[in-house]
């Protein structure tokens, strides 16, 4: 019998395989912060099971849980039955969009990207006091959060690249629009085209990006295949900085937060740590690290659609920083920096930086 919805077609067997054990509750950041069974991976699968057996239909009533998932993959990594909840959620969101049932923030984001260059509908990017669209060996692609929400961190990273005498250029970048694929929509072809054209025009051999989401999008989405086809490498800034010597150290107690998009999604755990250990001999791991890292709560569109819950999740992660007594939390994802910084309480005296930003501050002597 034909499944009524695509998610049932493609993933029905996995949905049925959920044995309801509830172990995902131990790792799901949304459940962990909100303590609401409907938010966990199990809750979502139980709801989809009832859709599959016809007890209920996909509808607006399901938005609150189906669109509240950071796609962090922790559930999948811990599921004894191997249910790929993130993929199922992505497909279910597409099915929901098709029937016209979507979270207004996500619908809004899709509309905004039809008419603007970035997810915030801002018209004026920071100029970062640098020329754009020059000819150079590397393109530095900032990403929307870095351009419009974490401009200080971005400025610092660019200053670092200058110190290291990297031959790079900024471009009049537009949103990679990779996020739309997680929200039930598709990459915006017009924006993808613009980015590709701008990158190609610089003659660069590689694109360095601070945002692991952008690098993942450029590397794996067919709309950006032309870049790979033309031999242009896409690397995250930690991969670029690995192996370099900076000649600075800090004696502060430093820890590292694995961004989901760099860690669980790309398997990049050690490169950032190599860099951090070089500049911070006093390094301590957070209780949940590497594949077990606790999501900061910003991903999967959750920061845009459910900001209060998103910040509550970030607060939970920061408790782990308090636990190890770190003075500094380093990561390399503007979205993580943004959400964690918003969540940090005044009484928490540690500082939050991107690795590249922190290295620059050390070199500047201002940290």
């Amino acid at each position, binding site marked *: 019998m034909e499944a009524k919805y695509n998610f049932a077609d493609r993933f029905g067997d996995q949905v049925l395989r959920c044995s309801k*054990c*509830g172990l995902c509750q131990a790792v799901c950041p949304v459940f962990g912060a909100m303590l609401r*069974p*409907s938010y*966990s991976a199990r809750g979502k699968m139980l709801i989809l099971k009832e859709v599959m057996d016809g007890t209920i239909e996909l509808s607006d*009533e399901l938005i*609150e849980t189906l669109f509240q998932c950071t796609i962090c993959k922790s559930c999948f990594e811990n599921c004894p039955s*191997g249910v790929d909840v993130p993929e199922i959620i992505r497909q279910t969101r597409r099915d929901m969009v098709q029937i016209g049932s979507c979270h207004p923030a996500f619908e809004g984001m899709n509309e905004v990207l039809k008419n603007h260059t970035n997810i915030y509908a801002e018209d004026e990017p920071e100029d970062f006091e640098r020329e754009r669209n020059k000819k150079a060996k590397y393109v530095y692609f900032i990403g929307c959060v870095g351009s419009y929400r974490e401009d200080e961190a971005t400025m610092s990273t660019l200053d670092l690249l200058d110190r290291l005498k990297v031959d790079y250029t900024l471009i009049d970048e537009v949103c990679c629009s990779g996020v739309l694929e997680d929200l039930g929509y598709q990459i915006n072809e017009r924006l993808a085209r613009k980015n590709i054209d701008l990158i190609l025009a610089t003659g660069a051999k590689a694109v360095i990006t601070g945002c692991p989401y952008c690098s993942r999008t450029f590397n794996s989405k067919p709309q950006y295949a032309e870049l790979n086809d033309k031999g242009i490498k896409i690397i995250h800034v930690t991969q670029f900085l690995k192996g370099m010597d900076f000649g600075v150290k800090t004696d502060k107690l430093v820890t590292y937060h694995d961004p989901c998009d760099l860690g669980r999604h790309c398997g990049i755990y050690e490169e950032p740590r190599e860099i951090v250990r070089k500049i911070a001999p006093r390094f301590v791991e957070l209780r949940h690290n590497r594949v077990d890292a606790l999501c900061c709560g910003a991903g999967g569109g959750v920061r845009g659609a459910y900001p209060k819950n998103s910040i509550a999740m970030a607060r939970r992660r920061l408790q782990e920083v308090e636990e190890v007594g770190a003075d500094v939390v380093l990561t390399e994802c503007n979205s993580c920096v943004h959400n964690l910084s918003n969540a940090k309480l005044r009484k928490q005296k540690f500082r939050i930086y991107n690795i590249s930003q922190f290295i620059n501050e050390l070199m500047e002597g201002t940290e």
Partner: protein
Amino acid sequence: MDETVKKALLDIVREENFSDSLIDLISDSYDASEHKHRPDVAVWPQNTEQVSAILKLANEYKVPVTPRGAGTSLSGTTVPVQGGIVLDMLRMDKILEIRVEDRLVVVEPGVVYDQLEKALDSYGFFFPPDPASGVVSTLGGNVAVNAGGLKGVKYGTTKDYVLGLEVVLANGSVLRTGSRCMKCVSGYDLTKLFVGSEGTLGVITEITLKVNPKPPAIATCTAYFDDMADAGSAISETMRSGILPRTLEFLDDQCIVALNQGTDLNLPEVAAMVLAETDGFTQEGADYEMDKVIEVFERNNARGITRAYSPEEAEHLWTARKSFGGVITRLKNNFIVDDTTVPISKLPEMLTGVKAISKRYNVPIATMGHLGDGNLHPNILYDGIDPEEIARVRKATADIFKLGLELGGTLTGEHGIGLAKAEFMPLEHDEVAMEVMRSIKRLFDPNNILNPGKMGLEV
């Protein structure tokens, strides 16, 4: 549900702790068993006063109340079969006191087992029961079903550690039981009545638990057996060999087949695999006991005995046992896991009997378990599409219960009766016992609002 009741609930817990949304009603219909039923409303109380007000209200309007922790019950204990209110205790999640000088902790029911273990670690103490669901299950749930666990062989189960409780009764009054002393025989032992009562006599709102100093030394080994009866004897002999291991786990040939299919462990396809662990305050002590275990195993034709000489090696030996949960659903889509428990000396007979039942009904059964305390976990595997197959599964399940009871055992060693075993209660408890239990239920809950429909106590 009466709108008056909903409004009154909203007044008690406020909007952010109340839901009648479809998504919550669906999620709260289920636990980790095969049972399901929709509630009318879900509430998350923050404190005892709210629980008291909710029960008073529910009692007045005769609305069923089903308490819920992590919802990981394997018996349907927390499925709201008569609708009504799901009382989600997760937001009462504070560790109130840790007093190692009095060897106790006081916790709210929503505290996750693992949360307590981590808090106790820095004091050099631990809470022994160690249920396999400990990463998510809550202490309220552990107490309500008297949960067992991996260390039951040496350390007993949850009931052995509950010093006292605060319980809200059906009429909203708040009862304190037990004491903060290591020993107390003053008045009736009401604590023991509530432990394992599966939410049918009252709602637990505070728990005082005894904790133990944590033995730092461990010894671990695994062994293979070509004959399942040998494995059974090895285990029962170990238990009378003059030492007390802390863990004695068993995996049968079906489990091994499943593990080999679902992982790259490449275990030898033998009849049974046993894992034993001893602990002590000195390594000599732990090793002495492990030596005895291995002697017994060797006497019972064990082969391939592997002993761990470091924490990493021990972790490696545990991989098979810990991975089993992950591979069951690769064999068949569905499974029912039971926890029929028999006297230790009856283990060989029980194991052979379960094999015969599997053959009789042509239903694969992968048996594992905490055999050190006679607690089997037969996993009955099925696809769940063919009603004929489901009928055979039901018969096999019933036969396993009957066999266990015939051997002087019990329907459930640690998962509780809930819904799953309710119909079999009269097979284990005679009419005198059943009537006493019903009378107790009527005394505590004359309107039958507390987790109704469970434990087979409905007349």
